[in-house]
């Protein structure tokens, strides 16, 4: 496996190749997609993208954590976290593409 890391640049390039827009505008649209998903989540909305997956906001209650290095107890405040549940299609494609990997 190549183990590359893709970034906004790669998504921008894909959009640029797919649609006849400038690279600059392609970059803005990629950003806009991420921004709208983030904004919806911040509003507490679930974001459900068919054949991709579902982003959900969950409330975590306060708990006592522990610094794994020092063993010291630290309070963890209640907070909101995002969870992502991949679609069946994404799970199948990722499983198929990585089957038999040797690492």
């Amino acid at each position: 496996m190549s183990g590359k890391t893709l970034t906004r640049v790669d998504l921008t390039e894909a959009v640029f190749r797919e649609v006849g827009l400038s690279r600059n505008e392609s970059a803005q649209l990629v950003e806009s997609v991420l921004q709208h998903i983030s904004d919806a989540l911040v509003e507490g909305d679930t974001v459900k993208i068919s054949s991709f997956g579902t982003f959900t906001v969950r409330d975590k209650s306060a708990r006592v954590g522990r610094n794994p290095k020092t063993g010291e107890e630290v309070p963890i405040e209640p907070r909101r976290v995002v969870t992502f549940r991949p679609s069946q299609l994404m799970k199948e494609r990722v499983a198929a593409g990585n089957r038999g990997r040797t690492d």
Partner: protein
Amino acid sequence: MIRSELIQRIAEENPHLYQRDVERIVNTVFEEIINALAEGNRVELRGFGAFSVKKRDARIGRNPRTGETVAVEEKYVPFFKAGKLLRDRLNGLED
């Protein structure tokens, strides 16, 4: 929010684009992420989050209905971790 609403919101902000082009743009973004993961790559989108592939070891599972044991092969699953900016925004820590 679902895919069509996301497309709608972006289309409204970009009245100079055809709706079908906005659809292609949005679909391309998600398609590229899946392709990258299927090839064993990571996708890192600073501020938003990172998609990666995690290995699940082979295990002996159990059919919850019959109690029968079944061998489950090792497999690779998609994983998402929210970025710091998004985590902060969710908790009211605006920039």
